[in-house]
């Protein structure tokens, strides 16, 4: 499906809960309520006209005001792509896990939890894996993070 077809198809089937983010990229980009993430993921994964069975990437983002989780999915069979994200409050960043839908989300979510402090409800083992086991300096990829031993990058001319 082309970008326009994808947008209209998803807005038809998921009206009200999704919000389109205008961009000039070839992929449609939606903003989803945190509560609707699992339902939306389930829908695009199972729907016969979408078959978004391939989670390319899941990244946490700290926008300074909010936390975001960005999902990049595509379909190998129908060869189209779709991006969507959800916005979470900074203090209590929580979203349901999509591990049941895309098994690969397991590690991506663990990483987002570890580096951003985004909590994924229902994820069975949110444990350290990239950082050292005795890490106690918070979530390093947050924008306001100041580590104990960090030397700031010198500002070039």
């Amino acid at each position, binding site marked *: 499906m082309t970008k326009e077809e994808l947008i209209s198809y998803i807005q038809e089937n998921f009206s009200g809960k999704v919000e389109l983010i205008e*961009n*000039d*990229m070839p*992929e449609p*980009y939606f903003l989803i309520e945190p509560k609707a993430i699992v339902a939306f993921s389930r829908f695009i994964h199972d729907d016969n006209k979408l078959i978004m*069975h*391939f*989670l*390319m*990437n899941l*990244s946490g*983002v*700290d926008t300074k005001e909010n936390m975001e989780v*960005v999902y*990049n999915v595509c379909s*190998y069979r129908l*060869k189209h*792509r779709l*991006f969507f994200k959800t916005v979470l409050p900074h203090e209590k960043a929580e979203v349901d896990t999509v591990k049941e839908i*895309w*098994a*690969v989300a*397991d*590690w991506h979510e663990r990483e987002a939890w570890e*580096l951003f402090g985004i909590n994924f409800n229902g994820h069975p083992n949110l444990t*350290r*894996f*990239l*950082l*050292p086991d005795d890490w106690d300096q918070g979530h*390093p*990829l947050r924008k306001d993070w100041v580590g104990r031993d960090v030397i700031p*990058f010198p500002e*070039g001319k």
Partner: protein
Amino acid sequence: MANKLHLETMQINMGPHHPSTHGVCRLILTIDGENIVECVPDIGFLHRSIEKICENRTYAQCIPMMDRFEYVTSMMCNWGFALATEKLTDLVVPERAEYLRVIMGELNRIASHLLCIGVTGLDLGALTPFLYTFREREDILDLFEMTCGQRLTYNYIRIGGVSRDIPPEFFPKCKEFLDKFGEKCDDYEKVLTENPIWIARNRNVGVITEQMVYDYAVSGPSARASGVNFDIRKHDPYSIYDRFDFKVPVFYGGDCYDRYRARMAEMRQSASIVRQALDQMPEGDVRCKVSPKFKPKVGEVYSRVENSRGEMGFHIISDGTVKPFRVRARGGSYNHLLVTPEIVRGLKIADLVAIFASLDIIMPEIDR
């Protein structure tokens, strides 16, 4: 002796310093005799936080970081990052630079597959094919050295083009390499593909089903060995790949043997792409003018390239300043290591080694 025999499983640490974990990966194995009951990967030994470092650098300064992201195919990492940035900036890359990118990328793919095949042989106890593949890899690295002065971390593909034009002696050398490469591939086939022990070790070992490919986002040759006909170069073309005539080799077994064969077939296709690119290459600039402190427009992009280990994607968020706001790199090995515990359950330790090698897992790509 009337008591029942007391049996227990044994926990064994495979890695971080183990010859066949291809870097510093630790696999915590629970084994029952020789059979693997459970395998838990423990990663992070190579974590350099490239994503955080990139947030503190300008876009142009990020390119050398990407060399370290996955050092076996640095060209493709440079390319992936440059491609994503160019999408954000609406840069038009000169024609000649595009061809140079394709040539370097495909040569790098061949080099990477040669490494994979050689190391698979090494891991299965066949030490000779390793030396054979490295002989050809050496030729490719010489070509790279001629082009950009580096043999491992190239920093060649820059935003808006490539760093410099190729020297005139590159053409005959590259042609010479391509001419003999077909024969050398036949040699590998003779040594490995028809070897009964090789077949016995690889056939029906570590089968990844088509459903697992989707669930675990397995990509690249490993996915194509499981019957998934998807190659980003063909089905979602970037750069100028739509101008070349090449096939996407697909195999249906999903086992180690088919992954090996997929790589083998892909190398031949890559060689043909390089040959076509050499023939079609136009004259002209190799770099468009980009300020080192250019500012892309505000926006968000996810762009992917077909790496030799699968899909390599870069998710970049720009806030309009000289530095990227957020960079996330995604490599194929990440998912391949995630799927490994699923497919090794119940197999032998020796099979784990074969699977690990055939999935071509490279640790820096996982830890970043």
